[in-house]
């Protein structure tokens, strides 16, 4: 009997010892119920437990699916982000590498691999730094010829854990600039820039800064540095020389043959200079058509003379440019240190003064600096300053010299001549100040004043008298000469036919086309055009063909030579003959003696001017003379000459 049943029997026993059957059955039935209930409870909880676990599992699966999707999304986003990062890094144009504290690659961009000629596999994160170095040795993209020394240097650089920048030339030829920045985790980030091209440009720029692009010669800047070196090295004791060279006739070639021919000529000049100087010094192009030579320390005055002579000689051989013969000459100014200057500035200035002197003197010569040049230059500068003030101070005055008509035996007009009353130096000769006025450009306002003044004066004269006015070629170039003359005529209500413009052949030297055009405009208005100082200078007869001059004025030097030089007679007659044949009036200037007057008259000249006839006189005197107050008979000398 089971224990439970035994207990149930005991519980069902009545006090009299008998079994209460109903009670026993009730206990047994309850026990069955209890067991059944427990079984049901167990089944239920087990089933529920599995349900719960199933649901839990389903949830988990759902969660895993969703998380996996999220993870994949994140992974894709990260990949994109990484690509963007790499693109951003690439866009900087830098090669970038990042290593961790264990010296393993974290990241590098493709420029990095390209720069060091590394195979793609070395770009994989985790690549040891040592492997990278070995690969660079294999690719020869390392520095120096000793791989071990290179490894040591790179490892030391990294192990120092400091910021540094370095420029290296790889064995493959690239110049690389490296910026190294240690990171807190013991690693580092390095940016590498290929500066090969940059470095080449830098060298080129440096070369350009010191060299002339056209000729390849050192430029003014470098010449000055070289001069500075010589000054410093010689320390005021050693001798060396500076030669400044200017080309004569270059401008004409440049104008006629064009700039490319001009450039070719300059290159050839540079070559000859360099060849001639050789090891004796440094040749530089100062700009334009100006060159310079700094002779080495040890060169004395005698050496400078020899070199200058050799250079002049070098210019004598004809320059063949574009199949054409070009003739130029050098003007050279020489300054010898230390005597002619102990500083760069002084040497340059003095050589320049010498060059100025040389150019003034003659074509194709050289001058060595003399202290007097300095004085002359200072005087000239003073003259320039005074001249600039002279106009507003009213220091100019016009004198008028009568022009005698040899045909009608009357005055045909006057030539206006400029006079300058200097406040301290008194009267200054036009021969002295006109060239200065021309060089400085002051001739333009001065000439304009003279035109207005002359026409205004002449407008008070009888209408048969003409006024002859000298116009400089500079006025043609820099001023608007046509407008100036028209304005002056309009102001004086003066007939153009009474105006005679005297020009020299220099008008044809530069801008000849434009100048000719201006002449034609004036001529069309009725203004007479006279060619002055004919017979001196180049006096090319072609000028007479290029413009229909109204008058030729033979230079006074020929007239004066009639007394002494035998050939003068022939020239004077020949010019008269040309004028006669071309229908151009001829005027003889500088007639001072009766014999001369007779001579030019006999030669057939239409007009004569000179002291014999009348000296230049102030306007007031002209007026008195014209009004008969002045006892000045134009016919008397003529009569004397005739007798």
């Amino acid at each position, binding site marked *: 009997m089971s224990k439970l049943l035994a207990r149930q029997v005991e519980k069902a026993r009545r006090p009299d010892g008998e079994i209460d059957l109903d009670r026993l059955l009730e*206990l047994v039935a309850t026990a069955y119920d*209890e067991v059944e209930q427990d079984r*049901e409870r*167990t089944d239920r*909880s087990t089933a*529920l*437990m599995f349900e719960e*676990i199933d649901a839990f599992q389903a949830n988990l699966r759902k969660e895993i699916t969703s998380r996996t999707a999220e993870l994949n999304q994140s992974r894709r986003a990260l990949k994109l982000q990484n690509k963007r990062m790499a693109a951003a890094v690439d866009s900087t144009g830098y090669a970038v590498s990042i290593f961790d504290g264990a010296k393993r690659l974290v990241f590098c961009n493709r420029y990095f691999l390209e720069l060091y000629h590394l195979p793609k596999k070395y770009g994989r994160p985790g690549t040891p730094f040592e492997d990278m170095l070995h690969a660079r040795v294999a690719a020869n993209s390392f520095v120096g010829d000793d791989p071990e020394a290179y490894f040591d240097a790179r490892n030391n650089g990294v192990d120092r854990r400091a910021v540094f920048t370095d420029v290296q030339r790889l064995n493959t030829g690239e110049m690389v600039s490296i910026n190294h920045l240690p990171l807190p985790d013991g690693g580092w980030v390095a940016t590498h820039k290929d500066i090969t091209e940059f470095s080449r440009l830098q060298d080129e720029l440096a070369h350009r800064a010191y060299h002339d692009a056209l000729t390849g010669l050192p430029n003014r800047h470098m010449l000055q540095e070289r001069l500075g070196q010589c000054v410093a090295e010689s320390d005021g004791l050693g001798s060396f020389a500076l030669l400044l060279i200017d080309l004569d006739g270059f401008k004409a070639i440049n104008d006629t043959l064009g700039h490319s021919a001009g450039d070719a000529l300059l290159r050839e000049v540079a070559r000859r200079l360099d060849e001639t100087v050789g090891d004796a010094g440094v040749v530089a192009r100062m700009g334009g058509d100006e060159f310079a030579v700094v002779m080495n320390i040890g060169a004395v005055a005698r050496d400078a003379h020899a070199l200058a002579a050799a250079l002049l000689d070098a210019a004598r051989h004809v320059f063949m440019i574009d199949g054409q013969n070009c003739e130029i000459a050098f003007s050279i100014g020489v300054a010898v240190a230390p005597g002619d200057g102990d500083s760069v500035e002084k040497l340059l200035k003095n050589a320049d003064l010498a060059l100025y002197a040389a150019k003034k003197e003659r074509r194709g010569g050289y001058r060595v600096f003399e202290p007097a040049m300095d004085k002359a230059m200072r005087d000239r500068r003073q003259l320039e300053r005074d001249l600039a003030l002279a106009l507003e101070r009213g220091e100019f005055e016009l004198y008028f010299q009568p022009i005698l008509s040899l045909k009608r035996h009357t005055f045909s007009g006057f030539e206006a001549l400029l006079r300058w009353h200097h406040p301290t130096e008194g009267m200054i000769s036009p021969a002295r100040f006109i060239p200065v006025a021309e060089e400085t450009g002051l001739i333009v306002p001065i000439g304009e004043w003279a035109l207005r003044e002359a026409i205004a004066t002449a407008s008070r004269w009888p209408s048969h008298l003409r006024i002859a006015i000298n116009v400089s070629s500079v006025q043609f170039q820099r001023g608007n000469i046509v407008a100036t003359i028209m304005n002056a005529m309009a102001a004086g209500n003066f007939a153009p036919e009474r105006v005679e413009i005297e020009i020299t052949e220099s008008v044809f030297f530069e801008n000849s086309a434009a100048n000719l055009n201006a002449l034609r405009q004036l001529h069309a208005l009725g203004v007479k055009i006279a060619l002055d100082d004919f017979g001196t200078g180049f006096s090319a007869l072609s000028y007479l063909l290029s413009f229909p001059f109204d008058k030729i004025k033979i230079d006074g030097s020929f007239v004066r030579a009639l007394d002494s030089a035998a050939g003068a007679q022939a020239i004077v007659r020949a010019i008269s003959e040309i004028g006669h044949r071309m229908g151009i009036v001829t005027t003889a200037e500088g007639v001072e003696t009766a014999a001369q007057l007779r001579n030019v008259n006999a030669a057939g000249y239409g007009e004569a001017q000179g002291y014999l006839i009348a000296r230049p006189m102030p306007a007031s005197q002209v007026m008195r003379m014209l009004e008969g107050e002045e006892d000045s008979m134009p016919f008397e000398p003529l009569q004397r000459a005739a007798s």
Partner: protein
Amino acid sequence: MRATQVYWSDLDGWADDAEQPQTADLVLYFASRETLSSPAHLDALRARFPEGQLMGCSTGGQMGDGDVSDDRLAALALGFDATAIRLAQTIVDDPDQSRDAGVTIGAQLASADLAGIFVLSDGIHVNGSALVDGIVAAVGPDVPVSGGLAGDGSDFVETLVACNGAPQSRSVAAVGFYGSAIRFGHGSAGGWDVFGPKRKITKSHGNLLLEVDGKPALDLYKLYLGPEESQKLPGSALLFPMRISDPRHPSRTVVRTVLSVDPNIGSMTFAGDMPLDWTAQLMRGSFNRLCAGAAEATHHAVGQLAAAPGSEVAAILVSCIGRRLLMGQRIDEEIEAATAELPPDCQPVGFYSYGEISPHDGTGHVQLHNQTMTVTLLSEAA
């Protein structure tokens, strides 16, 4: 020490028909709420043990004589040779005062020669864990404390505790044992097995559990109990105790049992704290495993007692009402299994409770247990 087990019922009087007064220092007694509600039991006890101090409580069934009874009162009368005792009592008006009540009890009993405490407490209105904390805080961790929470069958309406007088609701009573002669043996074991998924306490307040895994806790229980047994809540919830643990110390597990439910808000009140974010897992029992648990607890207590040979041993069993609900008529087998581990002439007395108090078998820390069989053995050195 002399121990006597006696049984009384209103109808039949003393089971042994004794009529002479008897000497005893302490009488511990257990009876149904119904029995305790009538003054007759107190008269009978006073008449039989006129000098004894009386301490008792209502139960979910009294153990004695190898059986479980709902009708008769079971008592253990103890006479000491070299041990002094002192009783203490306090009233708990609000469960939140449970810890304070424990401190009060502990303070009343505290003494340098306090050797151990046996405590009986109201089983519905007192937070057992807090009460134990209070007692331990007052007397120190080295004094062993055992006992239990009074029961009310499977009704969960009112529980009563008596201390030298009429039983009262919301009452806590305790007896302290003093001197060096007294010996204790304690044991506690469940025998319940966890099942189903591990859950998380997501809403709770003290011993009030509101949500598990974000869902009302009561729904979970109703689901597992099924419609029929759900009608018997909160008693039927004892069939599924809950094992909880701090996720930071997953091996330190505690078993919690339900005291009451509030169907309106879906909350459940447990016999101890249900801390937020702790891990919770349902448990269920099987007859054999529960019986094995009872045997294991007793075996542990016997091993701990180390009683002198020949000295008398008294055994008080406090077992959880949930065990009785599950095992039904076969609950006798639990008592049988426990008794088999005791010395040959030791007859245990005890009751089915709403919570058990005993030092932890492993750590020795006194704590409230649920769903366990706890064993308190008493003896005096010769």
